[in-house]
């Protein structure tokens, strides 16, 4: 029983990370059909922002020494800021470009961000001491669960609730949903394109920052590569969930996280190193089963 509880928490906390990432990608895809490959580098950027200006291996966390109630908003603001700046400087010029061009542009932007970080901080992973007492386990129904996992799950739930409230209850949320449904039509009805898109980028950047904070606390290190792996899975989750569908992205993120944890447990020992191969195999099977995604929004259905 306790083992099962442990697995459930592992799955939920990993899935939460993927879900937050997938949400960030799906939001932007919804409003401008952009698959943002720079998202993973936003995550890394936010993590490294906590180190700046120190470049030592065992970094004295500069921003990290700030009290929590300042640090968290600051990092979120950095994520949002980076994301909005990249929209204004880069993606705005690609509004009418075809998806492949946008995708490569976003990849190139991510490349620039990544190498900018590399130039400043070099490729050696740095240790970050951020709320390390959170990794202490707590006892829940007999199972010892790291407190951080619980917090990750709670944070994710809170973010999801807040975002849902925002999307369903506020005017901006309404505009954003309208834009995701049919961008041209929404504009004709008075939704300001730039505002909605910038808002989407800001929220997506904040989500990236949140992932960065969780990852940094979890691993205790800052590594240039840390964002990319989350981003790739998140990207897959967005597609499996049905591109443009926000609930779909979240559920698919949780599913992939759950599948990875579950396979780690149930696969025979010899096959465990190949776990990712099984997960990705399941991804292919899932795509073949439902090419439009599990929760494809009606607007993306092909009318032929």
């Amino acid at each position, binding site marked *: 029983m306790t083992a099962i509880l442990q697995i459930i928490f592992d799955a939920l906390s990993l899935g939460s990370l993927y879900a937050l990432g997938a949400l960030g990608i799906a939001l932007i895809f919804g409003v401008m059909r952009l698959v943002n490959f720079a998202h993973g580098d936003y995550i890394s950027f936010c993590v490294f922002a906590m180190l700046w200006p120190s470049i030592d291996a065992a970094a004295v966390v500069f921003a990290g020494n700030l009290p929590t109630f300042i640090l968290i908003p600051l990092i979120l603001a950095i994520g949002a800021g980076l994301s909005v700046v990249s929209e204004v400087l880069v993606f705005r010029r690609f509004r009418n470009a075809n998806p492949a061009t946008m995708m490569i542009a976003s990849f190139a932007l991510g490349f620039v961000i990544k190498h900018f970080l590399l130039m400043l901080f070099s490729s050696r992973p740095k240790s970050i001491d951020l709320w390390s007492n959170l990794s202490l386990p707590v006892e829940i129904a007999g199972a010892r669960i790291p407190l951080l996992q619980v917090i990750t799950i709670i944070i994710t739930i809170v973010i999801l609730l807040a975002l849902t409230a925002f999307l369903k209850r506020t005017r901006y949320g309404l505009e954003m949903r309208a834009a995701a449904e049919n961008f041209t039509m929404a504009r004709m009805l008075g939704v300001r394109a730039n505002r909605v898109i910038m808002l989407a980028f800001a929220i997506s950047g904040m989500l990236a920052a949140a992932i960065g904070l969780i990852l940094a606390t979890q691993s205790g290190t800052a590594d240039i590569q840390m964002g990319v792996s989350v981003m790739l899975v998140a990207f897959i989750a967005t597609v499996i969930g049905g591109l443009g569908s926000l609930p779909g992205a979240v559920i698919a993120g949780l599913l992939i996280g759950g599948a990875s944890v579950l396979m780690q447990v149930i696969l025979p020992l010899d096959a465990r190193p190949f776990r990712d191969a099984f997960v990705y195999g399941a991804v292919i099977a899932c*795509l073949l089963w439902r090419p439009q995604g599990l929760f494809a929004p009606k607007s993306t259905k092909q009318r032929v």
Partner: protein
Amino acid sequence: MAQRSSLLARTISTPIILIAILLAIAVLAKLVGSGPFSRTIVEMFIRIMLVAGLYIFVGNSGVISFGHMGFMCIGAYAAAWFTIPPMMKTVSLPGLPSFLINAHLPIFVSAALAGLMAAIFAAIVGRIMMRLSGIAASIATFAMLAVINTVYSNWDSVTGGTGSIVGIPFYTGIWTAFSGAVLVVIIAYAYQISRSGLALRAGRDEATAAAASGIDIVRERLIAFVISAFTIGVAGALYGHFLGVVNPDAFYLGVTFITLSMLVVGGMSSLSGAVIGVIVISTIIQLLRWLEKGIDLGSTTLAIPNGLQEITIGLVMIVILMFRPSGLTRNREFVWRYWPFGKKTSANGVAVSKGRA
């Protein structure tokens, strides 16, 4: 009545021009003769093989594939299995079946077999995956790449795991790489003017109309997928013989994105775009590398800080795409408009441009 000239006659100048450009580069490299420079050129020719091979599928079908570098992985490892001396294999790769351990094939046979292996794998996987289109297909190809990478990184007794396999004979020089690039350009060109290639392009531009005209898009896609897998498999084999070492991470995200970027920057739907994209980006990278090393200007050395090279190349790509969203060649092919034999090719003398302009 206007005489209809064949597609071949109208567009044959494209591969000839491209091959002439490649030849000029190869000759230049031979004339310069310095070791590092020729290595750069060899690498560029291999990239041309990769990108032109990628183009066979991506350009003609319009489906972005993230998975093709998996075929490069398969090709390179196959070349390693076929050509490393049996003595070394019994030690480093004990899990290989005995016929592979004893195999010691000539390089060209092994390269062809490597391509064939990639093609067979593509035929099996593609048979399942080519039903997908659009972004779902892209993700499926990415998942395929991840599966290949995971298997090759962890199947220690057969692939050496994440470590490198050494002992692949060095073979690929300028002329081998040049011939490889020419071969792929010819295959890509032949495919794109073939019946299947034209059908696939029709399906890319207007899927419904093409299907209504009796084109089986899934089948044509599969053909393109297999052919491009073959060329990329061969490219992978040559790459193995160029480096002498293979390891799975050389065939993962890095090379996937750089080849895709080259293709899109050059112009995704034209063969000329594929080739030019590689040449332009490789040239810029090389120039920046030289700058990074520093140029002697009399007493002072002018050098850009380390790491600026990658940042610049990223920015250059963004700027190119901003001003040329459909790539440097605007998805058109190079054609010789003034054909020496005086036959006006189409109504206005401008030969066909086959991309979506």
